[in-house]
């Protein structure tokens, strides 16, 4: 089963516009991460936000976390064609002292030049 669920499933925008993706999860978390995946390749870690944080920035990325609503959002500002990829949120599942990232189904982002 997948802990996080991203919304929308697919997003198509023009270059220069902002892209917002949302993630909802079911159980309490320690951390939430966002990953990027280009065309069925490996996952690249983008940003991590801890459960006691509400907002975090990294370059053109802005992540928010609302633990009361069990949701997070990823904002990509001034999008570029190179941002075209699938984006996944991952919550940590702790068992036996080991943290295992649990992924949602992802949002497919297409940025048109």
């Amino acid at each position: 089963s997948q802990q996080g669920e991203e919304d929308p499933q697919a997003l198509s925008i023009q270059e220069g516009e902002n892209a917002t993706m949302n993630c909802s999860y079911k159980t309490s978390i320690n951390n939430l991460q966002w990953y990027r995946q280009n065309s069925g390749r490996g996952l690249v870690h983008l940003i991590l936000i801890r459960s006691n944080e509400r907002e975090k920035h990294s370059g053109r990325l802005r992540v928010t976390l609302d633990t009361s609503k069990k949701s997070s959002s990823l904002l990509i500002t001034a999008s570029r064609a190179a941002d075209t990829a699938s984006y996944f949120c991952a919550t940590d599942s702790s068992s036996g002292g080991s943290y295992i990232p649990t992924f949602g189904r992802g949002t497919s982002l297409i940025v048109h030049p």
Partner: protein
Amino acid sequence: DAGVTQSPTHLIKTRGQQVTLRCSPKSGHDTVSWYQQALGQGPQFIFQYYEEEERQRGNFPDRFSGHQFPNYSSELNVNALLLGDSALYLCASSLVSGNSYGYTFGSGTRLTVV
């Protein structure tokens, strides 16, 4: 500094056959995790290896097995392949003392079962 290396990159097997996928972790990492990603889905955790033993396992049948070698590299074996095993298999390495944000992923092996 090499990241995570997976081989082969692509593989086509026939239903009922067996397959072995390989992973070399990032330098300095001692833990290897395997994920299965079906088309249009997110990665699903298969299992994790540390000190040559299976440390945790996801909801996958016994047809899926693995191994970790003294040099921390790992293999994923799948027996009696089904059409539904067609997927991208991702390997991730980390430090056992680290949290989940210490994971580094390889580019994956694309397995097609016909």
